[in-house]
């Protein structure tokens, strides 16, 4: 006991040693729960590793089969990319004008609107999917009732076909995350001096022109940041389709309409027991994210130089 106390005293009183002790929990946890499984995941991806055992080294076969014989991976990539555009990137098209509206000096009670738009962000995915369940219900849903009775068209089977499944997931994602993006853009807008707009107004620029010439160029660093977050999150989309379409068993719902890359990874690794193939998808996903975020950076740099 006294030895332990003495040791603590030694560490505790030592100003040189203390910072290393203070950051050590991060490194210990990262080594065990981060780095080791990352390394092991690469090792796994080179073997035909299954839940019941390792069937030997296969080289890059787990990777090549994804792009050749695998019947679902291509669909998963296409779905993920479509949802990335309609679910994640589309948000910015809405969020920027919304931020401009909320930021208008005419608006009183700006913060209340901000809070209202932000509220979906703190709601869990499961709750979101359940809430929208009755909106999208085929027979008794609100949306189909409006489509049938107000628009006079035929109701849509929202979760029964590939296209409508994507529309449903996109609407969920937009509803949940637009407010978050709007707040980020709002912070950016508040950094733009109002005199710039006043000067442009004197030069005869209309509202739309002002925003095109002043707001958008000055928001580029923030657009870059928001788009980066969307790319990283969008490529790892899992919760929404998984909960909406009922988990592993449906493999992304009818026509695999909601099967994303991460969803497929989870099916292989957790349902089918194909650990090696799942790990290979994880690495492909990692490199896809690395490439698209780099491309995003390059495009942003070029735009900023202009």
């Amino acid at each position, binding site marked *: 006991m006294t030895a332990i106390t003495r040791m603590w005293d030694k560490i505790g009183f030592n100003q040189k040693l203390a910072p290393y002790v203070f950051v050590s929990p991060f490194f210990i946890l990262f080594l065990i729960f981060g780095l080791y499984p990352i390394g092991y995941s690469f090792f796994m991806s080179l073997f035909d590793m299954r839940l019941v055992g390792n069937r030997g080294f296969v080289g890059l076969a787990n990777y090549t089969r994804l792009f050749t014989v695998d019947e679902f991976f291509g669909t998963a990539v296409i779905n993920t990319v479509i949802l990335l555009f309609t679910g994640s990137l589309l948000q910015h098209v809405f969020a920027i004008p919304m931020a401009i*509206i909320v930021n208008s000096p005419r608006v009183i009670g700006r913060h209340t609107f901000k809070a209202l738009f932000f509220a979906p962000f703190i709601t869990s995915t499961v709750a979101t999917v*359940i809430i929208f369940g009755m909106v999208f219900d085929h027979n*008794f849903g609100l949306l189909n009732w409006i489509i049938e009775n107000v628009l006079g068209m035929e109701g849509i089977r929202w979760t029964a076909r590939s296209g409508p499944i994507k529309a449903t997931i996109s609407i969920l994602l937009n509803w949940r995350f637009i407010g978050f993006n709007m707040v980020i853009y709002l912070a950016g807008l508040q950094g733009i001096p109002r005199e710039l707009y006043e000067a442009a107004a004197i030069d005869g620029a209309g509202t739309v022109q002002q925003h095109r010439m002043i707001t958008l160029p000055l928001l580029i660093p923030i657009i870059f940041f928001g788009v980066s977050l969307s790319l990283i999150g969008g490529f790892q989309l899992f919760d929404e389709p998984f909960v909406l379409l009922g988990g592993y068993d449906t493999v992304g719902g009818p026509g695999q309409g909601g099967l994303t890359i991460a969803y497929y990874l989870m099916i292989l690794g957790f349902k089918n027991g194909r650990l090696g193939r799942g790990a290979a998808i994880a690495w492909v996903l990692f490199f896809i994210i690395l490439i698209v975020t780099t491309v995003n950076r390059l495009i942003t740099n070029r735009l900023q130089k202009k």
Partner: protein
Amino acid sequence: MKKMSISAPEAVKTGALYASLAGLAFVFFFPFYYMFIIASHPRETMFRTPPNLWFGGALWDNVHRLIFVQEQVPFLVNYANSVMIAVLTVVTTLFFCTMGGFALAKYDFRGKKFIFVFILSTMAFPPFLNIIPFYRMMVAFGWINRWRALIVPGMANAMGIFLMRQYMEESIPNALLDAARIDGLNEFGILTRVAFPLAKPGMGVLAIITFVGSWNNFLGAFILLPRLQSTTLTVALNTLNAVSFGEFGMVYAGTAIAILPLLVIFFLASRQFISGLTSGSVKG
């Protein structure tokens, strides 16, 4: 005179502005309202045309069935689990991240810059990259169905350490730390008695981020806590939604009870929540 002539279009502009804001507010808030509508209808009036847009009289009945009648999920147990896991996650995360952030903010030591950059760069790894071996490891540790599987791996996380470092670097004066040293406090004493109290506002921000993340976490609880007795509210709701065919009133009542406390706290402290949950992005 000139003012008079431009006031009419100005009024139109203001009107259009508020109209679009009201429309947006409706779109964003309606699903929450609709959740309560469904939660308050009995089976008999649930499916109607035109769909229900006003409250029914069965809210209490639905809550009662959810808590006392249905046997698919132990709702109150899951609720308590979610609260406990979130609180434990927040407490441990605050401790370890403030500690790590303090070292990077207020000490000079060899390799500091490298350590800082290294910690930041670990954020680039997507969680899915190691999820399969991570899960196998948890199985090997015997941590499946134990809360520590959700709490321990992330309690000293890069984002939290970064956030606390940024906060403490500016808000804690070095002179105060030296004064504490002269008074005979050791480095742990300085951390817990000087740094912790001064870092409270930063810890508040991290607490909000961590609590919301833990409360809403689905994937982690889904794979690590498969047993219904030990799992969280999000997983229990997902199960309930999948197995209770047509019992929408009950499921929606459960959903409402699950998200209402957080929504109320959010609206009471929305400034802190919004700036906290976006702080990683806006300042970064």
